[in-house]
């Protein structure tokens, strides 16, 4: 009996088998890539806020320390979003009539909170603690990027678990001198690996094994 298919169809069948595997792989890469993409992580996405508060102006130009507003960053799990009162400390005098700041004054008058849009969102089952990171010498800009350059804050890091683990596996890379924690322009020196190791020992940073325990962040 004669062959039904011409020899050349062998190539088509091999090609389709091969490309099926290739496409499946591509699909997987695509899905994993999508999950890591800013589309999914919201990285680098600026959010409209009720008041277009500029960190660039307040931090970069005026040089106000992070802790003036984020008062609990050294003591508590959350850094703290300042109450309206904190804004009014200055703005009852400076730009007191600016139409731009009316939502602030309105909040202060009516006792209704300003509702900010959250930029750095972690899932509800993740328990991140600011104070321990800051106290052990992880700087603000390590995670939050150059806030002093941001007219509107966006999320500078992907905030994926693998990104967290990046540091928890190698904490040395992120440790700074304690007086540089709030310095937005700090750059790691060339001998960071060595300095980091010294800092880790001095500050009794827990071992990688301990830092990567599930219950360190999930409970």
């Amino acid at each position, binding site marked *: 009996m004669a062959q039904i298919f011409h020899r050349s169809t062998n190539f088509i069948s091999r090609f389709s088998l091969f490309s099926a595997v290739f496409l499946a792989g591509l699909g997987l890469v695509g899905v994993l890539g999508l999950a890591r993409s800013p589309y999914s992580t919201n990285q680098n996405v600026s959010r409209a806020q009720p008041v277009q508060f500029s960190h660039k102006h307040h931090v970069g130009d005026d040089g106000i320390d992070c802790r003036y507003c984020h008062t609990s960053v050294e003591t508590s799990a959350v850094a703290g979003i300042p109450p309206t009162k904190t804004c009014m400390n200055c703005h009852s005098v400076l730009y007191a009539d600016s139409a731009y700041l009316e939502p602030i004054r309105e909040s202060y008058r009516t006792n209704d909170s300003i*509702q900010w849009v959250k930029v750095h969102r972690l899932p509800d089952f993740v328990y991140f603690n600011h104070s321990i990171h800051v106290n052990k010498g992880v700087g603000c800009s390590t995670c939050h990027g150059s806030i002093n350059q941001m007219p509107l804050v966006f999320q500078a890091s992907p905030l994926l678990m693998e990104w967290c683990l990046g540091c928890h596996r190698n904490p040395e890379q992120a440790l700074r001198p304690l007086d540089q924690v709030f310095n937005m322009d700090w750059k790691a020196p060339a001998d960071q690996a060595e300095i980091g190791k010294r800092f880790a020992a001095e500050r009794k940073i827990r071992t990688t094994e301990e830092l990567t325990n*599930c*219950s360190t962040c*999930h409970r």
Partner: protein
Amino acid sequence: MDGMRKDDFIDGHMHRHQAREGSLHADDHSGSHEEDSTAHAHRLDLGQVRAKLREKSGKQYWRTLEELADDPHFEDLLHREFPRQASEWDETVDRRNFLKLAAASLALAGISGCRQPDELIVPYVKQPDGMTLGKPQFYATAMPFGGDAVGLLVESHEGRPTHITGNPDHPSSLGGTDVITQASVLNLYDPDRSQTVSYLGEIRTWSDFLKAAETPVLKAKTQGGAGFRILTGTVTSPALAAQIGNVLRQIPGAKWHQWEPAGSDGPREGSKLAFGRYVNTVYRPEKADVILSLDSDFLASGPGHIGYMNAFYRRRKLSGPGDTMNRLYVVEPTPSVTGSSADHRLPLRASEIEQFARGLAALVGLGGSGTLSPAAQKWLDAAASDLAKHRGTSLVIAGEFQPAEVHALAHAINAALGNAGATLYYTDPVEANPVNQLESFSELCADMDAGKVDTLLILGSNPVYDAPHNFDFTSKLKKAGMSVLLSSHFDETAEYCQWHIAESHFLETWGDARAFDGTVTVIQPLIAPLYRTRSAFEVLAAFTDKPGQTAYDVARDHLKALAGAADPEKFWRKTLNDGVVANSAFPPISVALKFTPASLPPAKTPPAGQLEFLFRPDSNVHDGRYANNGWLQELARPVTKLTWDNAALVSPRLAERLQLTQHAAARGGEHGQIVTNVIDISISNSKVTAAAWILPGQADDVVVLPLGYGRKRAGFTGSNKGYSAYVVRTSTALWTATASADAIKKTGEEYPLACTQYHFNMEGRKILSTGTLAEYRKNPDFAREGDETPPKEMSLYKEFAYPGYAWGMAIDLNSCNGCNACVIACQSENNIAVVGKDQVMRGREMHWIRIDRYYAKLNTETGDPSATDYDALDNPQTYFQPVPCQQCENAPCEEVCPVGATVHSAEGLNDMVYNRCIGTRYCSNNCPYKVRRFNFLRFQDWETPSLKLLRNPEVTVRSRGVMEKCTYCVQRINNVRIEAEKLNRPIRDGEIVTACESACPAQAIVFGNANDPKSRVAKLKAQTRNYPILGELNTRPRTTYLAAVRNPNPELEKA
């Protein structure tokens, strides 16, 4: 309430009907007719149980009667991995609809699930002083309860009270709590709470009420106020009493009545009989070597019980065989928490307790006599001589529900034994206005009936539900002119009152209260009232010349008056900070005994062959006021382990005579459902229908009817559960009713009860280790006998070193009496859902810590000293064992998880990662301790707004399809570690306190670093009493137990 679905809660009647169907259903679907008949043949046969018990020699422990009977049907239920009907779909939604819904939700999820919506941050406008965002604050306050107030430290997250701990500086707590105080935080967020003022069911404003209140005041001024009446429960608040006094002064002729349905006049009248005046008794169990309880559950109920528990168990801590411990004798009709942990327990009918007390009085030389059975007399002789040997260090405590005579006898006996002033002392009454409440309440009812009451103010009571039925309170209430009710819910009484004012929770209002020893605490609010609610102070103020007065004004003014020479402002602030007014406890007074036992009229001989029906408050819902609290409803009662219902508790012998039986039935594959007989109880010209429950250890011919159930208007959770024992309770038989044996009739129907002792069974192994003090001294290693823990190297897995912290827990069974405080503390701390009766019957309750109750038959060599007349079924020894996750070092659960959702931490914690869990349940199948809990359904209520406020923000709220279990409160470990690490110092011993540990009044649970030999937990684990459960499996549990040691009287041992 938390996480309950409507279809779980059919009203009681329907439920009963349905449930009966359910049990039939179990049989109908068993496949063949043969199996159908075997199910019926395997009803519990108590005769067979007794025979088996006699056969067995040596120590025997059992949890359920079925287990003891070696019932093959029950064993079959236990052993099948998938019992009959396990795979059956018995929900109302059929498969077709389910698939439709599943497809629709998948499609919708596809549309909406791409991106998460934005989340808003809502900061303060002006942040309160002293608050650090993200850090909880603790405020000292107190919970008023009956004749006591428990000092508390309440945890508040950004203004939301979430968790309650005891105030270590407060004598009623000493750091511990009980189930009701722990669960009271849920009452605050109860979605069924009343929210406003209403008049004849229509919403009114507060000012409407103030206006309406003017009329009776004006009338009283012109015509006298004899028709003005106030009804309250027992009041120990000095400020409230002062304000009531103020109303009574301004409305001349007005009267104040008190009625506490689950509070007895016995102690009050007993002190009057003994001393000629009302006197308060404060016990000091820590100073007593020998304690005799005459039907007193002093460790678990009544004023001061949390403090007493602390004091009592301080004398039962053993650091080695050389230590001594106290000895507890209990005579009681029904097994209580106290009785269950006694060294010697004698079941006697309630009416025989007086005979016993008279007999004891005679033996200590006070004259008189009591008639007892020879066996009881022998027991009494031994107890009496033991007491006499410990003059000044012994203590006799009379039970709250015993009549005045027993209390007077106890006072006389204590005086004769030289205990007054040593192991107990007397003070002025703690109550603001001690009265005979039954007389006070009868007077009110008579006056209402005579039309003499034109204004009735009810503050927090619910007499339509809980008044004795012969008072017919409801019809009399209709004769009152204006009726005003202040209550937290629109309850049974609210239906019949004109004005209903929503009551503020104690966490929402100011006030004060005296504890059992007189210590004053200021009650300070943690949160502004959630709704338009008012406190008793504000309602009373409406009838004075200062109608706008707030609770804050009254409490503050009253407290400042106590300041004495101190600066009033400083005094106020210090009191708020400490939670107690320093040195405000009443000083001991000396009172002369004006009573001789011989002068008592001859005791009414308990009628032979008659049944005794006892009315006792429920250990969880009390007199019914906590009926709508889902935590308390679902919490297994300490001794019966029943949930969601009350039953008529009968003794095994009575059950045999009445041919009452019960059998375990599977529901959805588990065995938490026990089908029992329904009985009609006709006493005191009234009838109630109840499910019967056979309770080992109950005195013969005694039936206990727990109060607090059968509520009609408790709310979504509490309405129509169980039966109301108030229906057959009369003023002449408030605590004990006698009736002939034909008062009980089997109706032929059956009713399923949800009992938690039928699942999570670790049968047949050495779970419990107990001994006597003598055995312990002879053989300090008795606890580890039979322990076959293999050597450490014998494991396929690589040995793991724990160089840093090694968290561990030691639970001293010698200090555990099963009070359940730890269970509710854990539920509150860890956001644990309530699942409802139907799910408990399927064995799906979510408690991370369960307390197993074991009955024991004593070693036959020594014989049960108190059981000459009884066998082990009638008076078993009882032990309790709390079982949280054992945090195994070689954890079987970890090896079988396909997704790594449960893994080991470097400190030995068995971490549970909810976000990884896909719900295979392999881990729970492989857990030998049965401590893992699976969210079969979405048990959490994510919609009700008020319940969102309740959650602990430190712990993930789990959803459907996720496994969960005890984490050793890893959130607390982490928070303490972070604080320690910030200071570069190690965690100190005792710094991390788990929720269960902090709640335990007896300090039975100790948590800490087992690697530090100086830590408390390491010291306990080093004791010879320390043993692991199921050690032979080489799981190396981090939670270990210290064997229970009882201290029986050798004199009774010999017999």
